[in-house]
């Protein structure tokens, strides 16, 4: 049986065929997971946000006009929901003990390599830098695509990218020496 494309899968889902939607989820899980996990790390909330992305899309199927590709549309939902989740985390942290302090202890107890240190420092980036770096440096979108996805000017993308990389370089200075 030939594989159905996004357009056909959406049309079949709108007719009530949930297997079409399942196929659609399978096809785009990777793109959504890449963004969500980079923004939130591999946490329980990441999987919940991932599910929420597809449920939001299912609920607004009629609104999808195909002006952008489905992948772009889903990634945009994913990045917005991840940013919301980061905001919620920030609020929770203001009520409870800082999670990053706990992470710091764990990080020093375990001898980490450069990649692990990079992941650790990347996670500490402010959301506006993390979102730009996730799309451009982790997921490999072009700077123009990143600007479109985040709906910010290209110049802002470039300056945030530069600041994010400078922050990472400065925080990893000790580990980058070798």
């Amino acid at each position, binding site marked *: 049986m030939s594989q159905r494309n996004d357009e056909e899968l959406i049309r079949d889902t709108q007719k009530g065929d*949930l297997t079409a939607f*399942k196929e659609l989820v399978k096809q785009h899980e990777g793109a959504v*997971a890449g963004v969500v996990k980079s923004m939130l790390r591999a946490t329980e909330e990441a999987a919940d946000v991932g*599910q929420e992305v597809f*449920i939001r899309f299912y609920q607004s199927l009629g609104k999808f006009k195909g002006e952008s590709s489905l992948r772009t549309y889903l990634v945009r939902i994913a990045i917005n929901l991840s940013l919301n989740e980061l905001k919620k985390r920030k609020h929770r942290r203001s009520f409870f003990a800082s999670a990053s302090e706990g992470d710091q202890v764990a990080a020093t107890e375990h001898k980490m390599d450069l990649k692990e240190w*990079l992941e650790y420092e990347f996670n500490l980036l402010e959301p506006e830098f993390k979102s730009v770096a996730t799309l451009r440096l982790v997921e490999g979108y072009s700077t123009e695509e990143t600007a479109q996805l985040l709906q910010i000017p290209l110049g802002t993308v470039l300056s945030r990218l530069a600041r994010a990389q400078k922050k990472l370089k400065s925080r990893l200075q000790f580990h980058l020496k070798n």
Partner: protein
Amino acid sequence: MNHEKSEDLLLHSLDGKVTESEQQQLQQLLAENALLQKAQKDFTQIRSLLGEHEQATFGPFFAERVLNRIRTMQQEVEYQLFSFFKKYQLIALGILVGLLVLNIVMADSLSLKSILGFDETESDLVQIDLYNDIIQ
């Protein structure tokens, strides 16, 4: 050009956003500045490590979990609608029976139309008059 600006130029060049003359300027700075060469090496390493990852997933049966949530949501909506109608169906039935009884009590005749509260047309009334004449 100070180091900060040289680094910015370097980073913009990594994203392909520099003009040809800026590129030439950067090459010259790199040739002369060991600190910038180290920065180039560091940024390249950071970018390469960030881009180095396997295809991400949300774990096994993710699509099934999404579908289950959708089905549960649909069932909840159906249940809420059903509960809403069940709650008011007795009241609605009572009102309907009451209206029927009222119509029967107030009707001049026992025709189905008058019981249901429809206006009787002139032809119906003519037919009733004819019927009365025949009986008399």
